[in-house]
């Protein structure tokens, strides 16, 4: 009897989890579904049964003279996101090394400084950034976003990488030293294999934040060099129906990051929490 009751409760809790998850996922499911509809089917009472079509995806990806096209925005995003993420890692890996493996004297203060820059609201820096970018002719270029996305993600990366690096057992490095491994050998044969998953998690988080970034892009690159988030908003029109088109555009815009996130979810959980509490 007791066991049966326990099993029933457990079953109900599982059912509850499923229900909540479906409710949470519903807006995304609905967005994807609407992308396959004709406008007339999307702009009415919610319909589950309809003739699916790829026409909206063709429409949003086709080029129109003088308007921001999908391919252009996509390439801009790919450039800004990938180069800034690489830069972040290039800057953050040595910094994390200097904070964890052979720590500088005041490593806590340095770490605090990096994190404290995250507390400075972007909005407080946007006016000078806009003016500097205008003076240097950087408005509407990919370069300005690359620089700013690097700065935006660097503190988080230093923070996360430091804790991954501090998980490397000191004995292993000493052993490699005794075996006569030079610094390069220690890094490639001992440290990197251990921190590789952490590096991947950190890079993924940087990619997510840079890919989804809208504020800096819309302030500094409203015309050329615009990225995917700006392209999505360009599919909202004040005239006529646009729901299905917007849904198709949104689906395309979110797909890369969602897929990457699904594949790396376990590492992300570890990365986020270990990054701070280890």
């Amino acid at each position, binding site marked *: 009897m007791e066991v049966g009751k326990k099993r029933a409760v457990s079953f109900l809790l599982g059912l509850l989890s*499923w229900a909540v998850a479906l409710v949470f996922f519903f807006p995304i499911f609905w967005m994807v579904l609407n992308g396959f509809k004709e406008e007339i089917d999307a702009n009415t009472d919610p319909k589950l049964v309809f003739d699916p079509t790829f026409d909206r995806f063709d429409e949003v990806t086709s080029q129109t003279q003088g308007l921001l096209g999908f391919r252009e925005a996509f390439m801009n995003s790919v450039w800004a996101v990938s180069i800034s993420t690489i830069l972040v890692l290039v800057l953050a890996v040595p910094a994390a090394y200097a904070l964890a493996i052979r720590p500088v004297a005041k490593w806590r203060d340095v770490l605090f400084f990096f994190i404290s820059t995250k507390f400075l609201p972007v909005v407080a820096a946007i006016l000078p950034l806009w003016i500097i970018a205008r003076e240097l002719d950087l408005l509407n270029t990919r370069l300005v976003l690359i620089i700013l996305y690097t700065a935006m993600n660097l503190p988080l990366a230093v923070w996360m990488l430091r804790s991954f690096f501090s998980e490397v057992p000191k004995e292993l490095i000493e052993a490699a030293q005794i075996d006569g491994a030079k610094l390069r050998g220690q890094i490639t044969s001992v440290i990197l294999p251990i921190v590789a998953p952490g590096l991947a998690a950190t890079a993924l988080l940087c990619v997510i934040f840079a890919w989804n970034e809208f504020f800096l892009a819309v302030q500094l690159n409203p015309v050329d060099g615009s990225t995917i988030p700006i392209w999505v908003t360009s599919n909202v029109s004040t005239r006529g129906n646009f729901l299905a088109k917007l849904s198709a555009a949104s689906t395309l815009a979110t797909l890369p990051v969602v897929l990457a996130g699904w594949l790396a979810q376990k590492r992300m959980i570890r990365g986020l929490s270990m990054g701070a509490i280890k």
Partner: protein
Amino acid sequence: MSQQTDRAEQVKRLQRREGWRRRLPLVPALVFTIVVTQVPFILSLWYSLTEWKIVPPEPRTFIGFGNYVDLLDNRFFREAVWTSVWMTVSAVLLSLLLGTLLAILLDRKFFGQGFVRTLLITPFLIMPVVAGLVWKTQVFNSSFGVLNWLLDSLWFERIEFVTRWPLWSIVSVLVWQWTPFMMLIVLAGLQGQDQSVLEAARVDGASSRAMFFQVTLPQLRPYLELGILLGSIYLIQVFDYVDVITGGGPDSTNVPYFVFQRSIGGGWQFGQASAYSIVVVIASIVIATFGLRVLSNLLEGEKP
């Protein structure tokens, strides 16, 4: 004697060199961060003490604290501050509460556990602009929104949610996106629990409620604090959602959006807007002081 001082000096020089060798890898990241984040901030501070309209171009004049005095009796600014506070506090606390409940639900074995977790984290991966637009046009919308269709089917009146409750509409979208994030953090906390303590409590015959409040919750504390900290850092800066859901207006213009409206968004009053943004910085410093204390607790006892 002289040999001794020589040696002492040599040791000192070696130590100094070793110190610099340790510091060197830090330099590029530090210099980059200082140049890109601190320089604009100092310029902002300077702009905030001037009267400066960019369109139409007017010369910049130094006016001291005039902008700050103006801002004290600007009703719209005060409203924006309150909106910011409400938006951040309610979104952080609600998503933390929901995220904790979901983490507890997920921290047990059941059919399709991995799949359910995948569904639940997805909102966090969605681009904020997309999240705002999808909720606005397909969930809240009074003619085609799913929520209104539901109301209609249940014989209730249709409601234009976004115009009626702009703040809570935005907060709902924020909670939808940040609950998965909080859930991930709390889940990591639950899974990292010290099993021996749980086992000991079980052996002592503790009820499951007592176990939760007296064993699990204290162990979760640093994770909850981390969630609040990261949530506040990101949510106090919300801009995208306001832009696409309401485009500003009473009860939805928060401070970042207000600064935008007064400067690049059409006002072009760079001096005044800088003063507003400096106020945000001061508010953030208050949060940061609290936040850094939390962080130092997190790092406490850790030996380098």
